[in-house]
């Protein structure tokens, strides 16, 4: 793995996206952002990221669907994915049953509010693998 990994941050909240970017760049990562799963999907070919930080609840295409798509693509399926979410349990019951989390097959699953230190540690651990 090259030292300067390219991380794609898929997050619809601009503030959060900006904060993650500000936390990652000083660590030497290159960061590209996308507002939702659909935009991320379109950017995959041109950007070719080697890591994905993914929010779950987004318009157009949500995190679970995007993650499943990534896993179904031969050229992308080995890219590590970290899912971030602040979803309350009651929403899981209806629209995102736990099954959705399992099927999405992310490498890590972090619940908001995520400590930036934890996110950084998770990323470096997964990149070293």
């Amino acid at each position: 793995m090259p030292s300067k990994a390219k991380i794609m941050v898929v997050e619809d909240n601009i503030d959060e996206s900006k904060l993650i970017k500000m936390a990652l760049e000083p660590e030497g990562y290159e960061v590209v952002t996308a507002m939702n799963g659909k935009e991320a999907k379109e950017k995959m070919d041109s950007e070719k990221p080697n890591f994905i930080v993914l929010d779950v609840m987004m318009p157009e295409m949500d995190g679970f669907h995007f993650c499943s798509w990534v896993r179904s693509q031969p050229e992308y399926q080995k890219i590590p994915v970290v899912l971030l979410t602040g979803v309350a349990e009651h929403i899981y019951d209806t629209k995102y049953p736990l099954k959705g989390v399992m099927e999405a097959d992310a490498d890590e699953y972090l619940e908001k509010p995520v400590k930036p230190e934890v996110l950084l540690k998770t990323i470096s651990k997964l990149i070293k693998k």
Partner: protein
Amino acid sequence: MSTSVKKNCWQQLQCNHGPKSENPCPAVVDETSNGVNGGKNAGRICWSIPNTPCFDEIMGRFDEKREICFACDFFQLVKREEGEDFHLFKLAQGVKGSHKLHDTISQMEHLFSIHERLHSHFDLNTTIREITTAARRITGAQRSIVFLLKGDPPRLYGEFRLRGKVHRVSIGVDNNSAVGYAAANNEVVNLRDLSGEFMSVNQPVFNRSFDKQINCETHSFLAVPVQSSGEMVIGVITAANAKKGYFTADDEWFMRTYATEVALAVEKQKFLHQSFSALRLASIGETVAGLAHCIKNIAHALRGSSYIIKRAIEANNVRDIRAAWEILDRHIESLASLSLDVLTYDPAAHKGEKGTSLNDLVSHVVHLFQEEARARAISLSMELGDKVDPCSFNARNIYRCLVNLITNAFDACPLSEGLVAVSTKRTGARELMIRVSDNGRGMSDKGKAELFELFKTTKTGIGTGLGLPTVADIVKEHNGRIEIDSKLGEGTSFRIYFQEL
């Protein structure tokens, strides 16, 4: 017609099982049927008696032998002789009016329909009105009132309609009136002739003050206690007759049945009240869960920006400090406005309060749901009608309706590209409308029909099945109505119309 010319079955059919035989027929000895169709014991209603040894064969029950009975010459003879007064069953014995076969059957059907309708109502007054109407019809009474025990010390409260006006009556639980007596002693009171001819010394006093109030003279009166499942008296159902005649044992039987229905309705009402408070708790739970989600998102941003600021200070990076500080500020602001929202729109804080601006209420609720809409990738839009305000409505109730409808719309929405639109409109001088529509899964006609059924839910795990019945109840309270347009796979639109207070 004297009874001497009316023949009993054993006389007409020259039966070997008559009164003088060693082994008399069950119809011969059934004293409870004495007098029906003018016969001795069940002599002229033998078809209703099981196991009669007719035609040298032991017959079964009525439903087993009726074909033979209907073809029997004796049955036809009795039917001809009695004409309009013919009784097919002893159940109908003595019940006033003409009781032909179809009357009896229609009455039984009516009893069942009352019982069934009880399951579809949750408004106690409507149910009681239906029961008293049915009781009047079946006993031939002019008035029927249900009194329920309330207060401390308990008194009996009842209401009735007279020429379109509702009158309320309250009676003490004591021996000073027939109604009070029935409740105090848990006894059926059947006053057969109040004109005095056959007044018994021991019978409870009939209080005439009520008669004066409605300008009528009661001739006969029936009061049956209403008992809860624990056999406690919770009220009294009465029937009063101004015409000659009296209430028979069969009338008493019917009234006892109605008393049971009243008791069921009261208990159901109690149960619903408990369920509604459970629902309120559940909706608070949902709000809290929604809030937790909002707060988590804010905390996430606060944590992120404080990390950036800390690190940027160490690195002396003013640009990052500024950027993160801005984000921090914005989220502190949203935290503050979030707590304001919750304080302003706690439904409990609005108990019974009259609202004057429907558009304000709707925009507050929509605002409150905006964050969850974002999290669930739903676009929540709002269109406020002009001329809606000022108006007058029960703020707490309409708030509950709206929260219910929006929650349902959210839950129906597809995984992505969900659309929920809320709008208000004035539809009459005193009438307002709120519409909540979604582009969700929609409903079949069957689904629509079951919509307002209690405890029916399609939301496994989170639905109580009380949401829409609550909405229906509230709308009814506002003399309103609900209209639904729904197409399977295309979405649903709920319109609630209600009258201003």
